[in-house]
């Protein structure tokens, strides 16, 4: 196999997942080209994904072992680009903030934000639901949690889009630089005047040996929580709405029985999760996998959306079926880097879907199905916009 796939190019179509699954039938692992023109191994098959995501021979610490594989050169991203035991040491500092209890306590606030945003839509009309809802909702939640002042939130959408849906390497690096600079300033302000939020808690946090996080570590933490904490949910929710609206029988089933919302969220995650590709790993040794040899020093990433459609796991993987009673997907990854915010993401998606469907008995795509535009991104699966026609009374 010598073909090198450009994922971002493929992603511009709705058929990305089918195409990947077809590729996966012959190759559990393929070569792809990244934004910075680096070639990497990309794992497609579900079994190989499960095996390699916990393989200690693959390191997330690309800054040490393969700097060309870094998300942003010179800026080590907290948690994502770290290995254990250091990774676990940092992760423990934020575990409680994303634990079941903390996320349950956020429920009333998430419902409030959701209702306020839906109120702004009025009784009927046409709107881009990404702009009007799926972007602002999770952003408000994570900014509240971290303690980001409301007036600072305007540039986040551009930064998030540039970083995760990267239109170009230059835009990505420029926005990452601006985001880190902003976070350094925010940490400085909170040091002087602590507030009741996660960032102030992190500033005050101490490791077992009494040491504290440095400003650089704190701003890296802030940056990763801010971006990963909203952009993924924005796109997950938009994908979920799109997939429900283009599968009317599934939407009808959910409207008939709103208690299916939990399994609808799981199916949305499996069918078209938003965190499509993981960050790079680097091989610390030669690894035989899926009929190829990954050489020491080579980059490896995981295409979770391909693994979630693997025909070896379920023959009807391309069917969108909210009645599947299973959370057996890898949309949140697996192993040591299993998504920190998965409970919050699930809760936000559950509340949002419930409230949107209850509010608007009439809801449909405002453009023909084939005309929605998909992000040409090799990292995030999502839509450019989601124009919906909505009304509080059924048509």
């Amino acid at each position, binding site marked *: 196999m010598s073909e090198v796939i450009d994922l971002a190019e493929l992603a511009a179509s709705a058929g990305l997942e089918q195409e990947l699954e077809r590729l996966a039938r012959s190759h559990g692992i393929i070569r792809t080209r990244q934004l910075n023109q680096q070639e990497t191994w990309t794992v497609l098959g579900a079994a190989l994904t*499960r095996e390699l995501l*916990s393989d*200690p021979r693959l390191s997330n610490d690309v800054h040490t072992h393969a700097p060309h594989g870094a998300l942003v050169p010179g800026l080590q991203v907290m948690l994502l680009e770290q290995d254990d035991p250091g990774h676990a040491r940092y992760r423990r500092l934020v575990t409680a903030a994303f*634990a079941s209890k903390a996320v349950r306590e956020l429920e009333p606030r998430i419902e409030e934000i959701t209702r306020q945003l839906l109120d702004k839509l009025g009784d009927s009309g046409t709107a881009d639901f990404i702009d009007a809802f799926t972007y602002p909702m999770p952003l408000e939640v994570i900014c509240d949690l971290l303690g980001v002042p409301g007036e600072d939130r305007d540039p986040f959408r551009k930064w998030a889009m540039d970083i995760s849906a990267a239109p170009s390497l230059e835009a990505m690096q420029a926005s990452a630089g601006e985001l880190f600079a902003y976070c350094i300033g925010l940490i400085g302000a909170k040091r002087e005047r602590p507030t009741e939020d996660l960032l102030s808690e992190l500033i005050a946090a101490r490791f077992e040996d009494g040491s504290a996080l440095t400003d650089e570590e704190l701003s890296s933490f802030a940056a990763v929580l801010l971006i990963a904490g909203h952009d993924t949910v924005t796109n997950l929710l938009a994908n979920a709405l799109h997939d429900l609206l283009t599968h009317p029988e599934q939407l009808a089933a959910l409207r008939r029985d709103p208690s299916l919302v939990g399994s609808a969220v799981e199916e949305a995650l499996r069918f078209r999760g938003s965190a499509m590709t993981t960050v790079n790993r680097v091989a610390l040794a030669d690894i035989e996998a899926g009929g190829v040899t990954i050489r020491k020093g080579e980059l490896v990433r995981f295409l979770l959306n391909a693994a979630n459609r693997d025909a070896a796991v379920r023959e009807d993987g391309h069917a969108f079926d909210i009645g599947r009673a299973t959370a057996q997907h890898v949309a949140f990854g697996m*192993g*040591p880097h299993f998504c920190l915010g998965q409970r919050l993401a699930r809760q936000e998606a559950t509340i949002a879907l419930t409230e949107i469907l209850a509010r608007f008995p009439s809801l449909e795509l405002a453009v023909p199905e084939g005309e929605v535009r998909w992000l040409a991104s090799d990292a995030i699966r999502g839509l450019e916009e989601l124009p919906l026609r909505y009304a509080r009374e059924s048509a």
Partner: protein
Amino acid sequence: MGQGRAALCRSAVPGSYGMSCVRELGEVGMRITVNHGLCDGLGQCALVAPEVFSLDDDERLVVAPDPAPELAGRVAAAARACPVRAIAVEGA
């Protein structure tokens, strides 16, 4: 600590680490320690070694008593899969 196949649970490590739970693996002499103060109930260990690790309804980690010695490799992999390193394995 006790020898042999007995599985025991004890509260240990006073202070911020909360309660630890110790299981001994019979013949191989492997000891599994779960720090419940750190465990976040994510279940990543249970995906790797479901015969040994499971979550109860409250997302609390339960370690099976007396796991088969041939599971030693999987138990070690399960410990590595934990995002917060709440599982320690000695003698694997």
